[in-house]
C-alpha cells in the first residue's frame, strides 16, 4: 500500500487560498515566445520529461482540519491549445486536479500556475526546463544545454532539504524540485543560532551558502558562463537585472502571504517611522463581463528603458513603479482626494536565502508616495520610492519580518484554530491589506536561457490575475515586456504609461487580450 507524500502548505501560500475570488483566482502565467509555431506533440513529450523532475508539480491541494496540505498524485498533465481566457481558475475546492497547466498558442508556450503551488521564480525554472526540453526534441542536433561545468557543482542534499548555493550549481538532470521542502521553515523557524551570529547575517549568509553570491545579481547571466552557464535560473536571484534586487514572486500584495499579522510597513526597525497612514488611492472601474483578467502587454527594447532608469538614478523596478504611479495620476485626472499611491513589490528570498525549492519563497515590500506634498516629478518619486524600498529588501529586515510572521503562524493559539476560521481570518487580513494598496508591481528580472535555447526564444512574458491594477515585468533577448493586468476594462493607465515611454523615444509594441463583448465580436470577424 503506497502512502502518498504530503506537506503542509507553507507560510506564504495559505493566503492565496483565502484571497481567491472570481475576478482573481490567484493564477499567474509565464510565457515564452519561440521563433516558430509550437508543435503540440513535441511539447507534450517535453512536458512529460520535465514533469518527472518536478515532484512538486504532481501535487494536488487538499484540506485538513487545521491546514491545507499538498499531496502527491498520479495525475499526468496534458498540453492544450489556449482556449480559455488568461489565468482561468485552476483550483476548486474538493476537486483533485493539478495546480498548473501548459498551453500553446501560435508561437507561445504558456505556463499557468496556481500561486499556492509555486512563485514566479519556481515557475520560471519549470518553464525554462520545459522550453529547453522542447527545443532539444525539435532540434536534436543541438548540444545539450546542461554543460559539464554545471555538473561539477551539484547541490548538496541534506536530510531531505536541499542545501545549495541558489542554483548556481544546478544540473538540469539532477536537481529535482521536491514537494516537501519548505524554505520558510528551513530558514526562519527555530534555527536562530545559525543566523544569529555577530556580526550579523550578511557575511554568514553571503559566504558559505551563496557561492554565486555576487553573481546572484545577474553576473553569471550576463557573462553567460561564470556561475551557472546560461541557466536562467542559474543564480539565486534569477538573473535579476543587475541593479534591482526586487521582485521575483509574481506576487501582488495581498499575496504577500507572508503578510498576515502586521502591516509590512513602518515597523521594521531601521526605517524612519511614518506618520499615520494617509488615505490610499484605490482604482475603480468597470468589471470585465465574465470576470476575466484584462491583460495588456507592452514590449520594448530593454536597454532603452534601463538607460532611462539609470538617468534617474533608480533601479528598473523602482523606475517603472514611479512611472506607474505617474500614469495612474494622469489617467485618473489628479487622483481626487486620496492622493497617496501605494504599491506592493515582492522580493525573491532565494537571492539571500539560497533554496532550490520551487515552492513560494518571497516576501513583499510596500512603498508609497503622496502627491501634492512636495516635489512630484518622476526623479523625486523615484528617489522617494528607492529610499523606502532599499531598507526593506535587505536580508536582515526580511529575516526579521519573516521570523515574525512565522512566529505568528506557529503560535499555539492560532494553530488550533480550525482551517475554516483561519481562512476567514486571512480573508479579513487580506481585505485590510488591500485597502492600503493601490497597485502591485513585480519584476522577474533579466532571464538568460541555457545553451541553444537562448537564441531560439524571443521575448518572454509574465503576468498575474489581479484584484487591482498591476504590472509584471521580465526581460529576455533584449526585450523588456511589461504586462499590465487589471480586473477592470479600462486601460487609461496603460495608455499613459506607454505614452510616457514613447515620449522618451522608447519604441513600444502593444498586444492586448479581448475582453469586452464588442472587442471579442471584432476579433472573431
Amino acid at each position, binding site marked *: 500500500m503506497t502512502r502518498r507524500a504530503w506537506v503542509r502548505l507553507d507560510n506564504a501560500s495559505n493566503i492565496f487560498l483565502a484571497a481567491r475570488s472570481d475576478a482573481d483566482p490567484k493564477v499567474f502565467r509565464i510565457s515564452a515566445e519561440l521563433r516558430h509555431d509550437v508543435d503540440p506533440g513535441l511539447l507534450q513529450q517535453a512536458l512529460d520529461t520535465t514533469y518527472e523532475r518536478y515532484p512538486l508539480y504532481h501535487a494536488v491541494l487538499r484540506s485538513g482540519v487545521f491546514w491545507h496540505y499538498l499531496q502527491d498524485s498520479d495525475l499526468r498533465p496534458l498540453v492544450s491549445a489556449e482556449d480559455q481566457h488568461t489565468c482561468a481558475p485552476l483550483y476548486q475546492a474538493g476537486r483533485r486536479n493539478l495546480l498548473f497547466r501548459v498551453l500553446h498558442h501560435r508561437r507561445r508556450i504558456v505556463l499557468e500556475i496556481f500561486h499556492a503551488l509555486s512563485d514566479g521564480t519556481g515557475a520560471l525554472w519549470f518553464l525554462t526546463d520545459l522550453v529547453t526540453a522542447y527545443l532539444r526534441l525539435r532540434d536534436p542536433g543541438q548540444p545539450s544545454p546542461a554543460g559539464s561545468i554545471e555538473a561539477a557543482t551539484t547541490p548538496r542534499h541534506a536530510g531531505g532539504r536541499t542545501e545549495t548555493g541558489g542554483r548556481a550549481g544546478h544540473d538540469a538532470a539532477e536537481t529535482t524540485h521536491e514537494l516537501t521542502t519548505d524554505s520558510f521553515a528551513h530558514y526562519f523557524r527555530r534555527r536562530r543560532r545559525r543566523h544569529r551570529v555577530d556580526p550579523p547575517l550578511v557575511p554568514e549568509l553571503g559566504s558559505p551558502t551563496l557561492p554565486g553570491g555576487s553573481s546572484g545579481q545577474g553576473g553569471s547571466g550576463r557573462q553567460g558562463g561564470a556561475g551557472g552557464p546560461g541557466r536562467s535560473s542559474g543564480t539565486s536571484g534569477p538573473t535579476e537585472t543587475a541593479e534591482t534586487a526586487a521582485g521575483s514572486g509574481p506576487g501582488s500584495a495581498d499575496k504577500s502571504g507572508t503578510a498576515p499579522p502586521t502591516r509590512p510597513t513602518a515597523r521594521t526597525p531601521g526605517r524612519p517611522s511614518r506618520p499615520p497612514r494617509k488615505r490610499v488611492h484605490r482604482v475603480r472601474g468597470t468589471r470585465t463581463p*465574465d470576470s476575466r483578467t484584462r491583460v495588456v502587454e507592452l514590449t520594448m527594447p530593454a536597454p532603452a528603458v534601463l538607460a532611462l532608469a539609470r538617468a534617474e538614478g533608480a533601479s528598473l523596478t523602482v523606475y517603472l513603479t514611479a512611472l506607474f504611479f505617474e500614469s495612474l495620476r494622469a489617467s485618473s485626472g489628479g487622483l481626487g482626494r486620496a492622493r497617496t499611491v501605494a504599491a506592493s513589490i515582492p522580493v525573491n528570498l532565494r537571492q539571500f536565502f539560497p533554496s532550490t525549492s520551487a515552492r513560494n519563497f518571497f516576501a513583499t515590500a510596500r512603498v508609497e508616495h503622496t502627491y501634492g506634498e512636495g516635489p512630484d516629478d518622476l526623479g523625486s518619486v523615484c528617489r522617494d520610492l528607492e529610499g523606502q524600498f532599499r531598507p526593506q529588501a535587505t536580508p536582515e529586515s526580511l529575516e526579521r519580518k519573516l521570523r515574525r510572521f512565522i512566529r505568528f503562524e506557529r503560535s499555539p493559539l492560532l494553530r488550533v484554530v480550525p482551517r475554516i476560521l483561519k481562512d476567514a481570518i486571512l480573508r479579513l487580513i487580506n481585505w485590510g491589506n488591500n485597502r492600503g494598496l493601490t497597485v502591485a508591481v513585480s519584476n522577474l528580472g533579466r532571464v538568460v536561457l541555457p545553451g541553444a535555447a537562448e537564441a531560439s526564444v524571443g521575448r518572454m512574458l509574465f503576468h498575474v490575475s489581479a484584484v487591482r491594477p498591476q504590472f509584471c515585468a521580465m526581460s529576455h533577448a533584449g526585450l523588456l515586456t511589461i504586462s499590465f493586468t487589471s480586473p477592470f476594462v479600462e486601460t487609461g493607465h496603460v495608455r499613459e504609461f506607454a505614452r510616457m515611454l514613447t515620449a522618451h523615444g522608447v519604441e*513600444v509594441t502593444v498586444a492586448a487580450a479581448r475582453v469586452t463583448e464588442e472587442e471579442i465580436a471584432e476579433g472573431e470577424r
Partner: protein
Amino acid sequence: MRRCTGCAVDVEGDWARCPLCGEPLGGEAVRSPLPAVPLRFSRRRVLRALFLTSLAAILASFLAQLLFSRFSDLGALRSVWLGVVTLWLVVLMAVRKRRNVAKGTVYLVILVGLICTYWDYLTGWHEWSLTYAVPIVCGSSIIALMITVRLMSIEVGEHVVYSGLTAILGLAPILFLVLGWVQHPLPSAICGALGVVALVLLQLTWGAETRHELAKRLHL
C-alpha cells in the same frame, strides 16, 4: 503592424481601434499573440446562489415547524412538508459531496439522523427515531460504504477516515440502549455490533493507514 499615432505605439493583432486610447489604427494587421476567447459564464456562481437559498429555505422550514407544533396541529400536512424538505436537503448534500462518496455518506448519516430525531420530537416523541430510524441508517451506511469502497476501488487514504467515522457513528445506538431511550433493543443492538465489527476490521486491515491519514488531517 498596425500603428496608433496618438500613443505612438505599434499594435499586434487585428485591432480596428487602439486598445489603449480607442483611436482608429493605420497599417497592416499582424497575427495576435493572444487568442480571442469567447465570453464564458461560470455556473459556479449560479450553483452557489442556489445552494445558499436552498439551505436558507430548508432551515426556515424546519424552524417554522417548531412554531406550528406549538400553535396548531398540521396533521398529515406536516409529514408531507418535512418529507419534501428532507428530500431536498439530502439531494443537495449528495450533489455537493458527489466527488467523495465516503465523505458524502458520513454527511448523510448525520443529517438524516438529526432530522429523524427532530421529526420525532415535533410529532410528540414516540421514540421511533432512536429505536428504528437512526440505528437502521447508521447500520446500513456501514454496510453500504464497505461495499462501495470495494466496488469503486476508492483509494484507502480517501475513504479510511470516513469509513472509521461511519463505524463510530454506528456505536451511537449502543448509548441509546444503555440510557434506555429505545422501545425495542434489537435494531440498536444489531447496529452497535456492526459498528464494533467494522472498527475491528478497519483496525486489522487499515490501522496504519488510518493513523497516517489522521495524523495528516489533524496536523497542527
